[in-house]
């Protein structure tokens, strides 16, 4: 079984069970909402995939010429175009593409050895997950803690400092931040490795099952590999997470400030409840709901940030793959990756909406 299939099983089965539970136990409105969202998912992915398909073909460039360069003779180019089906009418190519999407086969890439795209994703997607999930968690943690502190110390130096941080960090290009991290923590201080997913030597000892290396290390009990993979995660995760943390921080701050002005907070304070508990226990619970919604929306930005982060840290994930294949005009690879990203974003925002309704019982669909 490929790592991609294993990951889908690990994530998909609990998600499906959860969905089924919510579907059965939830309100009729929620059931209708879930069905509508799933129904909308199909045309959304279809429209996006079609758009990418046609835009890729309108753009200047040709995958065969791009990969052969000046050394490819006209005959070679013609033969390869025929082999790859690039001479077929556009409508035929489009039909083949739609069939590939429906069957989740995605076909073969046009460049780089013409491997099945599913195989290539299977190698790359776990690496991106390994990076993006902890980065999102890190961004959320920094954002919620920082935002709450800023709200609690409103209009004091800490508040100003955190607000300044949130604007500054969001303005910094991710590649610059990554490079600075490599120079300072990698080269100067020697605290972290600067690139890659695992130490090359230790990597040879690791049996890969899911291709999420720290998970594989735990599964196989390879503790040096666990340490190595976690230490390699630090810089890219912190870089990507920091960039996104500013948005969460600002949103949390605003929501906590608004919540602190509610009557029930005043009542809690009047009862003599300690301020720390008022903020952390009462205000934050309500203030965090819009932050969860934002997390769903930020997934797309997170994936876009991962493209640059993966390049800076030579992290062999989907982002790096996408950049390489766009430059070589590999139509099928680009279409497939973007379609997969679209499905991922849509599913995560659906999950977030469902979680939203569970966190806030007032929400009705």
């Amino acid at each position: 079984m490929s790592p991609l299939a294993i990951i889908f099983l690990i994530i998909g089965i609990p998600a499906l069970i959860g969905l089924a539970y919510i579907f059965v136990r939830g309100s009729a409105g929620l059931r209708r909402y879930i069905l509508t969202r799933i129904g909308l998912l199909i045309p959304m992915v279809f429209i996006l995939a079609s758009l990418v398909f046609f835009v890729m073909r309108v753009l200047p460039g040709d995958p065969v010429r791009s990969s052969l360069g000046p050394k490819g003779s006209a005959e070679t180019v013609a033969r390869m175009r025929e082999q790859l089906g690039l001479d077929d009418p556009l409508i035929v190519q489009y039909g083949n593409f739609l069939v590939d999407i429906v069957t989740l086969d995605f076909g073969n890439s046009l460049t780089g050895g013409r491997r099945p795209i599913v195989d290539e994703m299977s190698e790359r997607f776990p690496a991106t997950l390994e990076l993006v999930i902890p980065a999102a968690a890190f961004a959320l943690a920094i954002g919620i803690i920082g935002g709450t502190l800023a709200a609690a110390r409103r209009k004091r130096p800490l508040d100003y400092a955190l607000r300044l941080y949130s604007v500054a960090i969001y303005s910094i290009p991710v590649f610059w931040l990554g490079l600075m991290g490599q120079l300072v923590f990698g080269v100067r201080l020697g605290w972290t490795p600067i690139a890659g997913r695992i130490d090359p030597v230790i990597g040879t000892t690791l049996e890969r099952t899911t291709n999420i290396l720290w998970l594989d290390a735990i599964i196989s009990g390879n503790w040096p590999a666990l340490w190595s993979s976690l230490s390699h995660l630090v810089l890219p995760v912190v870089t990507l997470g920091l960039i996104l943390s500013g948005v969460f921080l600002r949103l949390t701050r605003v929501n906590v400030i608004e919540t602190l002005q509610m009557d029930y907070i005043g009542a809690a304070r009047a009862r003599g409840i300690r301020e720390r508990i008022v903020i952390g226990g009462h205000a934050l619970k309500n203030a965090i709901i819009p932050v969860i919604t934002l997390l769903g929306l930020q997934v797309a930005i997170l994936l876009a940030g991962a493209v640059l982060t993966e390049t800076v840290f030579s992290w062999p994930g989907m982002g790096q793959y996408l950049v390489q294949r766009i430059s070589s005009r590999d139509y099928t690879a680009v279409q497939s990756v973007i379609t997969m990203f679209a499905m991922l974003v849509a599913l995560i925002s659906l999950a977030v909406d469902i979680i939203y309704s569970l966190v806030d019982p007032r929400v009705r669909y």
Partner: protein
Amino acid sequence: MKRWISVVAVLVLVLAACTGGTTEDTTATTAGDTTVPETTEGDTTSTTAAETPDTTGAPAGEADGTIIIGTTDTIASLDPADAYAIHDWELLKNINEGLLRWTPGELELTTGLATDMPEVSEDGLVYTLTMREGVQFSDGTELTAEVYAEQLNRLLTIGPDCPNGVANALATPFLESVEAVDSSTIQFTLSRPVAYFPQLLATAAYLPAHPDTFPAEECVTFPEAPVHGTGPWYITEYTQGEQTVLEPNPNYNGELTPQVDRIIIRYFSDPQTMALAVQNGDIDIAWRILGPELVGELEGAEGLSVGAIDGGSIRYLILNYAIEPMDDINVRKAVAAAIDRDEIVDVVYGGQVEPLYSMVPPGFIGETQAFDDMYQSPDLDAARAFLAESGYDENNPVELELWYPPEHYGASTADWMQLIEQQLEATGVIDVTLQPQEWSTYVTALTGGEAYAGGVLGWFFDFPDSSNYLEPFVFNGGLGTMVTSPEGEPINDQAAQLVDLLNEASVELDEDARAGLYEEIQELYADLVVTLPILFEVEHVVPRDGVSGSDQFASPETLNIGPNLEFYYSVLSEN
């Protein structure tokens, strides 16, 4: 709250239990020692170079004889009948040995699997070679002449349909058939005499492929590891974009015996990251492609040495004979006279590349400085004089469109094209318009010869021979020079003379006579300004202290990588 504190405390304890031992060892290995970790549960004694970055100069993989080489290249194919990229060839030539190969560090052919250099028939059409005894693949499979011939015939049968098309360039135009005369003798029959056939035999296309991994009927670009070969190494595992691991072939009986236990090729997507990695000790060697700016930074870094190899790719201008105003020989000569290569080298590249005055780079057979001898550029007066002959002057300047791909050859291309624009316009008689274009559109239009009057291209040889730097720009449209038609018809008498000379040189077996012919060809080539050579990029290899090449071969300071850029991992050792 107490409940949460308890949960956090338990998690911290679990984490500490998981990582505690390793942390201790981390402090003990700050010199960068790297041992092969046992996968036995509970073992926490193994450490990594990466977790304790080495800044003391010791090799990253010292403890177990592992050398880690960084590159920004990628694997495109590991099938000898298909592979047509520098890094693929490097891997293939390390895991396979062919009949002939290059002496490390030099442009000198030597025997590989063959016992002697080829025996050539009088008509130059039949090459016979005898293989040494007892050649085995790394898995123990015997390589006989019959197996070898079968694999090479695969190059002729399925090779042309493989994705990267190496057979169309290096086999089918010359090779008619391959036969095994007996179990150790192999015979090649050519369709026409080819003086550089021995050089072709030393390319990766003519390597023996394992018959079980690479079946006769299909191209296998990414075979499952282990990938066995007849060379000093074999690939134990590889992961796209991450790393390739090579270990010594236990059955290898040739000269290039490995000096270390393992080679790991680590892939980087960004040269800047690779430069930091070699500084940090994460890798032992930074190899292709660093770029001139990064090389300048690394030259002063402690614990590193920078080796420069005069053997990189060249950059040149295609000047299209069939499109105005380049169809005018005086315009082409004026351009040749006006360009100042030294200024490009100094201003754009800070002296990290070399000016090129012939399409044939230094070190190759018959190499001359034909363009320098003929035009002594920059000579603006000469440029104006050439243009005056065609009726151009300050009031009637020639308008020139020059095209370039802004990304494909790096950002510096735009810089030096702007410099060329300034240099040409300094004549006062040339008005240049620069036109950037996306690579695949660009290369199609330029090499098709129907759209652009002039543009920049790069070239890297398929086999290190002067013919490979001249023929492609003359024969069959000449990649957009149109000095001949796509069908091969020369555009004028001088072009016909050039074609004849190239054909003569390609069948001349006497090296001195051949060198003389190439000297004559380059002079005529410069006079016609078929293309305009501009510069060649010096390749750089950056090893950390403690990693070295072999004193038995030339250029140990560049890890015995010579102008042909052949990198034999077997020469590497750790001190």
